[in-house]
């Protein structure tokens, strides 16, 4: 395990234990089967029960059958998930940070009781519908709408695209602009709805043909006159703060997650290069290869310490969203770079499913784009340090 600066000593016993328990679970249950699922383009649904039993779903939430762990322990769990596969980590991120978290933070007591325990047990799967075909980096422009019905409740119309777990989900968190409430503070503003996916007018269509995140289900959600009751609306938040606070949770998990992918790539490249002999000696003995390995371990080490500090800030309730953006931007960028270098060091073997590096490399292309693209995070940090918004 890469720990060049003794990060272990900065962790508490339970943090180390969470990391080790998840690592062990992943090594035993997931690593042996994941390449096949990736190749077949299937999500390993057989693991959901195991993830739930392990306590991974909504692990950082308190109550409702959740493990209630701190942010650093949660981050380390994400690291171990993604050390295996970004798609598997995405499943858990979506279930916990994007679906259970908003219900926990913005839902009514009845909504929490109805959904959270079953979601922690993995019996109810959620998906998070924010992005639309024409509104990706700019979700504020969304056109999905929820019209207030005269007899109470809402009618939803719109299309959501690139929705992880869309076809697995029992409940979709749909972000939509409400109209017809007669309340100026609410009309035209974004609200979150809990839409059971069996509701009439709701369809999910799996997006096939991906070369990235293949062991994860990505879907398009179509809402055509979907009618839901008043109890579907999450009462605790109005406006983009709702979805953005979920994204802060999930992005934080990604910061740790991609360190896991980078570590897997580095460790694979390190051991491969020590065994692979070309010309007179193992390729790890050549300066060019050493420069690559040193670059990898440097960037992993920097990311680990950056992210540990981020986690401690988050635990203290002092983290700024722009700080999460900085780490997401930095860590994903370098994880992708490390995956590409590892791919190179493995030569021809680097393109084979027998080794994890090509799969990580392809996966990280998605991670670079989702939850705010690399450049969007540049603009977020840019705005934070200059006070000038450069989005429009």
């Amino acid at each position, binding site marked *: 395990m890469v720990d060049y600066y003794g990060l272990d000593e900065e962790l508490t*016993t339970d943090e180390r*234990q969470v990391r080790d328990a998840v690592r062990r679970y992943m090594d035993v249950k997931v690593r042996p089967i994941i390449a096949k699922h990736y190749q077949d383009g299937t999500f390993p649904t057989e693991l959901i029960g195991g993830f739930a039993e392990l*306590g991974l779903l909504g692990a950082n939430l308190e109550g409702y059958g959740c493990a209630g*762990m701190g942010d650093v322990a949660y981050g380390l769990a994400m690291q171990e998930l993604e050390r295996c596969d970004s798609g598997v980590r995405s499943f858990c991120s979506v279930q916990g940070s994007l679906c259970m978290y908003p219900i926990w933070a913005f839902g009514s007591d009845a909504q929490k009781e109805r959904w959270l325990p079953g979601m922690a047990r993995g019996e109810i799967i959620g998906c998070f519908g924010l992005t639309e075909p024409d509104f990706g980096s700019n979700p504020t422009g969304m056109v999905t709408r929820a019209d207030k019905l005269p007899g109470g409740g809402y009618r939803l119309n719109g299309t959501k695209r690139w929705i992880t777990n869309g076809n697995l989900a029992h409940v979709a968190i749909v972000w939509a602009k409400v109209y017809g409430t007669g309340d100026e503070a609410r009309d035209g503003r974004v609200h979150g709805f809990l839409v059971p996916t069996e509701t009439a007018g709701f369809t999910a269509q799996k997006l096939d043909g991906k070369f990235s995140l293949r062991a994860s289900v990505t879907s398009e959600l179509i809402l055509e006159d979907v009618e839901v009751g008043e109890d579907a609306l999450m009462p605790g938040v109005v406006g983009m703060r709702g979805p953005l606070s979920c994204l802060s949770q999930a992005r934080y998990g990604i910061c740790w997650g991609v360190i896991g992918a980078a570590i897997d790539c580095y460790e694979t490249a390190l051991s491969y290069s020590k065994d692979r002999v070309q010309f007179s000696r193992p390729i790890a003995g050549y300066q060019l290869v050493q420069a690559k390995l040193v670059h990898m371990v440097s960037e992993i080490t920097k990311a680990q310490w950056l992210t540990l500090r981020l986690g401690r800030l988050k635990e203290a309730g002092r983290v700024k969203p722009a700080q999460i953006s900085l780490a997401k931007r930095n860590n994903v960028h370098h994880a992708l770079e490390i995956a590409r270098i590892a791919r190179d060091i493995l030569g021809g073997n680097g393109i084979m499913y027998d080794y994890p590096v090509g799969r990580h490399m392809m996966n990280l292309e998605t991670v670079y784009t989702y939850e705010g693209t690399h450049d969007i995070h540049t603009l977020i940090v840019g705005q934070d340090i200059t006070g000038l918004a450069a989005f429009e």
Partner: protein
Amino acid sequence: MKVLVPIKRVADPANANKVKVAGSEVSHDGLEWVMNPFDEWSLEAALRLTEDASAKTRTGEIVVVSIGPKAAVDTLREAMGKGAERGVLVDGEDTALDSNVVAQILAKVVEKEQPDLVLMGKQSADGDSNIAGTKLAELLGWPVINYASHIETSDDGKTLTIKRELDVGVQTLKVQGPAVITCSDRILKPGTIKNGVTPADFEYPDLGDLNSRLSNLKNIMAARKKPLDELGLGDLGVEPVRVDEYVGFELPAGRSGQAQFLESVDELVQKLQSEAKVL
């Protein structure tokens, strides 16, 4: 039922290649620590003895005890994350311990805790001495049964029926507790433990190559709040007496010889006869 499970942290046997020698001792620098796998088997057995596996409730108590430096707390918390109720850490540096000292310390802990049973590893994966359990039983005047493969408790929990798998067959013993028991890896198979609480038809999942059940994150978080006592040898009134001394340690010679890939089993048998001369 109250079970005492002694647990040692050992350098990860999977990373044996990182071991370095400093004089007569193994250097601990850069090693990764894990729970002694043989202790894990006993912990798993103890967990099965003290739970209703189908209702997922704990019915007895497990106290895990480790003798080691402060960092061994991790290993105890790991055991508590798997279900043990309490931990006891006895302060002691590995270099000051031999099997005799370990048994002396454990005997004092047993006196203090009064368990119905001590379930321990048959040996530790680093020292491989295979002495501490037997020695402890001797100090306590308790029966000792090594390499148990099955354990069944009577209704009152006092009598234990234990099976041991031997080369010549399966031996069944009855023993009146309290007793010291060490386990073989057979104990990890489904159906080896009957505690009268877990329904007889309950199927434990196959652990594969794990040495004990995986911890669940909720239990790990809960284990933070479980009681853990830290004691010194003085608190226990132990005057450690070493009866052996390490005088030298050498790493094994590097493996020599080359692997040969053969085409058929016949060829293998022939080579084992003519070249290796082992048949």
